[in-house]
């Protein structure tokens, strides 16, 4: 029982050491192999309009007209 407990602890420590040993070179490697990215001088523009297709606009047209008519105070 006692031996089991200490055995388990030793195993836990070993695992942690192994993790550190594996982790350290990985981290070193990651730092050494840093990819340099140049920041663009122009702002990145994301065109959200790609989500709006003409067929969708045609489908919604009638409902849009109705909404505008029925809420003319805000349009």
């Amino acid at each position, binding site marked *: 029982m006692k031996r089991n407990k200490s055995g388990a602890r030793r195993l836990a420590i070993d695992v942690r050491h192994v993790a550190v040993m594996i982790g350290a070179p990985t981290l070193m490697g990651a730092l050494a192999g840093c990819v340099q990215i140049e920041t663009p001088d122009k702002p990145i523009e994301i065109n959200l309009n790609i989500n*709006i297709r003409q067929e*969708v*606009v045609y489908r*919604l*047209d009638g*409902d849009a*007209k109705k*909404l505008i008519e029925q809420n003319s105070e805000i349009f």
Partner: protein
Amino acid sequence: MGKNVMRMTKWKPTGWALAAVAATAAVALAVPSAMAQRDPAYAAARAAGQIGEQPDGYLGFATTPTPAIRALVQDLNIKRKAAYTASAQSTGSTVEQFAFTSGCNLIAKTKPGEKYQTPGGAWKTRDASPPERDARCP
């Protein structure tokens, strides 16, 4: 000049669609309904060209706004977004899709002298000719 010719050619195939739109609008105008009026301050800012319709379905500032006009537009745009959101849900579309479709209609409905924003982002004053709208507008 060349641009105008291009535009004319572009509109030709949609002649019937335009006629249908015009007919629908005419019927809508002919039928008297309990339509609420625009707030006088809003109507005045619109008529003065201080604010105008954007392609995205919201109001924008054609000139630097006064705090009062800014507040007015923000309030209207919040109300518009709420209306677009409800309609988007009932039509199974996104708020952006519904707002954009409304923007197509709202720019088409601008009256001569009122401002609207072109797809390129420039503010233009509406005249008698058709407004410059996104190619996806019906």
